[in-house]
């Protein structure tokens, strides 16, 4: 792909982000504009900011990649990512705002008056934040590799450095404006190319066979296999090989492969002819973690789908960078309105990635083979339109992708650094906040170097699973159940969230094997969320004496509209 436009586009996005963040509100105002200067953030602006922060690499690149490889079943991802806000709207948004809590640990302390639960919630915020940062950095690495051929870790390093620098320097002063700007940037970066791509697809005779039959090459195509894979062939296939197939080296030889499984070693180049079906990688044997989730998904599609649905529906409310944005709403009603607007904005955005996924299956089917399916969004403009137009559209998409990494990563880094500064590092202060920022970024950066490519949407799904198993019970029971006790909350979070975390760690470590156990570990939400709820309820019931003293007053504050409360205080 031609990078002469993409690299400046990415640089432009980075610079614009830093500038809007640092100077967005530097325009001084005189007192005559007092009402302008002190107007609270409206629901629409705040919703755009929340959406901007929320739409991460998983949304921008990952969903299209998954749809490309695994078909329309993966549409549950965008549905789940959006529906999470519906649950948030129904159960959490307004009471959370009225609680006055800025972060999840704050909420735990406000509701349960317990420092221990606060610390535990802080630990989970850090854990979820790190799990969520990891795919952002990997996505950045992938994007830069596809654009320029740079090493995998460079993109992640760039995002990490930029984000750490701006956050630590006290930047992101006008974070609401930055994030709202990023949302519209991301939407544009997907929408405009999508329109052109659909036009190109129309011009191509609008082929419709995306999922009915196995994907086929539409023209002669050279594919370089990056990781060793086993290819399963239904029918004999003739390809030109330059590399190692089935242990035998070939040099630009025309080879007839019989039906069956063939091992293609990393680095081999295969040239397929027009009309050849795209061979399917055999996931069970090729090993590696990028395939482990997919394997269990193929074995138990129903279980995997339900696990995904539960994790995304209930996990959104526990995402640290989403929760802090609700504080900006002036009151509970505004928080609800904001959530409704978020649903609209995000729902609109998520119509686009599946389009890229379907077109990717038609025009870049070989990505399923090389394990770089996440790059489909980036490659499509060049592949389908080509020329200067394709380059420019590709640059736009690349810029949007970087906006996705930067906005989500900076929001997460701020949330994690805030918790580290407040609850972990010995004393508060600006210097400790900088230290916290560094710490917040170093760990996922190191992990992203060590851990190879888990598909970004799957990695984000794991973060959702942990969040759903720890924070969802805390928030829902904390807001709606007056008999929750500090020990109950602590044990529930530890058991639910902790078990989900261990399952995720085992999955990421690529614990070998398949079968039911592996599926359970790969999609933990289905058992860990009920486990968290159950433990929290049972332990709370077992410790009735520990219900915090002010519970009734606190719940009244959560649920009564602010005007009523004011009237009550006045009376």
């Amino acid at each position, binding site marked *: 792909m031609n990078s002469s436009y993409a690299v400046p586009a990415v640089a432009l996005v980075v610079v614009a982000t830093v500038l809007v963040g640092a100077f967005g509100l530097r325009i001084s105002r005189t007192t005559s504009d007092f009402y302008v200067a002190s107007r609270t953030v409206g629901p629409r602006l705040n919703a755009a900011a929340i959406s901007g922060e929320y739409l991460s690499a998983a949304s921008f690149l990952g969903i299209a990649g998954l749809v490309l490889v695994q078909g329309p079943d993966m549409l549950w991802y965008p549905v789940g990512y959006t529906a999470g806000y519906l649950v948030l709207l129904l159960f959490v948004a307004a009471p959370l705002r009225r609680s006055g809590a800025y972060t999840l640990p704050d909420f735990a302390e406000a509701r349960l008056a317990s420092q221990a639960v606060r610390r535990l919630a802080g630990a989970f915020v850090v854990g979820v934040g790190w799990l969520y940062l990891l795919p952002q950095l990997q996505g950045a690495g992938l994007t830069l590799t596809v654009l320029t051929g740079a090493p995998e870790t460079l993109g992640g390093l760039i995002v990490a450095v930029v984000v750490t620098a701006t956050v630590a320097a006290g930047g992101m002063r006008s974070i609401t404006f930055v994030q709202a700007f990023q949302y519209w940037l991301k939407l544009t970066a997907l929408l405009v190319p999508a329109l052109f791509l659909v036009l190109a697809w129309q011009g191509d005779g609008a082929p419709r066979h995306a999922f009915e039959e196995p994907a086929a090459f539409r023209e002669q195509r050279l594919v370089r296999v990056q990781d060793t894979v086993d290819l399963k062939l239904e029918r004999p296939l003739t390809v030109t090989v330059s590399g190692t197939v089935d242990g035998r080296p070939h040099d630009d030889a025309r080879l007839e492969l019989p039906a069956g499984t063939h091992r293609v070693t990393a680095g081999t180049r295969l040239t397929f002819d027009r009309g050849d079906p795209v061979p399917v990688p055999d996931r069970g044997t090729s090993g590696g973690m990028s395939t482990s989730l997919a394997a269990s998904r193929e074995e138990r599609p129903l279980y995997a789908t339900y696990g995904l649905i539960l994790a995304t529906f209930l996990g959104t409310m526990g995402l640290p960078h989403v929760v802090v944005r609700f504080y900006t709403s002036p009151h509970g009603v505004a928080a609800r309105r904001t959530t409704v607007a978020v649903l609209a904005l995000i729902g609109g955005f998520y119509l686009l990635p599946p389009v890229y996924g379907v077109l990717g299956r038609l025009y870049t089917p070989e990505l399923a083979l090389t394990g770089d399916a996440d790059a489909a969004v980036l490659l499509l403009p060049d592949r389908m339109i080509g020329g200067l137009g394709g380059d420019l559209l590709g640059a736009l998409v690349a810029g949007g992708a970087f906006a996705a990494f930067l906005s989500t990563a900076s929001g997460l880094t701020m949330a994690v650094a805030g918790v580290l500064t407040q609850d972990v590092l010995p004393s508060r202060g600006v210097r400790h906040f900088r230290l916290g920022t560094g710490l917040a970024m170093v760990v996922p950066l190191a992990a992203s170097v060590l851990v190879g490519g888990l598909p970004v949407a799957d990695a984000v799904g794991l973060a959702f699973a942990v969040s759903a198993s720890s924070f969802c019970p805390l928030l829902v029971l904390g807001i709606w159940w007056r008999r929750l006790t500090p020990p109950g909350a602590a044990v529930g979070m530890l058991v639910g969230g902790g078990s989900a975390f261990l399952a995720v760690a085992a*999955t990421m470590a690529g614990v070998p094997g398949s079968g039911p156990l592996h599926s359970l570990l790969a999609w933990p939400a289905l058992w860990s969320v009920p486990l968290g709820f159950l433990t929290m309820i049972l332990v709370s019931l077992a410790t009735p004496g520990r219900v915090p003293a002010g519970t009734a007053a606190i719940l009244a504050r959560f649920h009564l509209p602010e005007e009523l409360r004011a009237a009550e205080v006045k009376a």
Partner: protein
Amino acid sequence: MSGFLAGLCVAVLPLLAAGFWLGRRTARPQTLGGLGTPVEHATFETLHTASLAAPPLRAGLNEETARRSARRLRTLLGTDALCLTDQQQVLAWDGVGAHHRTEIMARLAGPLETGRGEAFPLTCDTPDCPVRWAVVAPLTVDDRVHGALVACAPRESAVLVRAAGEVARWVSVQLELADLDQSRTKLIEAEVRALRAQISPHFIFNSLAVIASFVRTDPERARELLLEFADFTRYSFRRRGDFTTLADELHAIDHYLALVRARFGDRLAVTLQIAPEVLPVALPFLCLQPLVENAVKHGLEGKTEKCHIQITAQDTGAEALVVIEDDGAGMDPDLLRRILAGEISPSGGIGLSNVDDRLRQVYGDAYGLVIETAVGAGMKVTARLPKYQPGVHSAARLAPE
């Protein structure tokens, strides 16, 4: 393989962190005791137990605090049972023999009346009841009996009587400190009220004079100013809640500045930079307006040319940073330090030290005002407001837009 290693790290890191944290929590300073003699060790352990029992009692004597401290106190005395009572009932019973509650309460009437300790045998139907004797030591604060500490033992013991008396005296000191805390809170509340009242006479007089001067020449302006005046006084005289939001406080400051500008006209220029993210932050009622008032006073003092005041509120993650800066006469830092320390009473401004005290009271000592000034160099006052603090909630929703 590297994937496996990394996953292992991911799994092990939180465990390590949890272990470290647990270790720090449970590492008792006792380990240091190994360095000294057994006597030193015992002394140290006793002091440690006493220090653990102190914090709950600092909140006063009630069921919750009694329950949390009774266990430590029993360890301190080494008895089988210990109970804490107030004037009417048993607040907490730690140890065996809780069926003696009513009996003890009945016998306590005398000691609670006289404030003198005593020891008496307990009558019990249970043949193997482990507690036969009760030692009563009253808890007194300022010569008033608040309750009693009762230690129960299998037999009478002079040592226990002495020890119970000493522990009761120690508990009484803690309760006195709790009393002191309470009166300090009351004092600060009174100060807030004083601050509210303090605005009025001086400021009301000036404002009304200004408004009067406009009544003939510019009735429309006079009407607007009267409305500003009404809004400002309504805000500062309101009685509900100790906390407000930054948005409301800024609106009050706006009304205040409108009135001041009517008086000084072009001599006063104000610049604002407010990050909208921090407007919902809750903060103590009327704690920024005095700072602005101060800046106006300093800025216009002994100067004929223009004075410039800058108000900024920034979002810094978990805190809001509010800076109020003027380019006026400034102040001698040493004088200011002594005013803030309460060594000399200021001529005009109770404002700064009062705001400083209240911020420290609400958010802790790390959150006092930071003031940068020198004679002739203006003054810059910085306040840090945490976005969340337990117990800090604004009373009402933000001003309608």
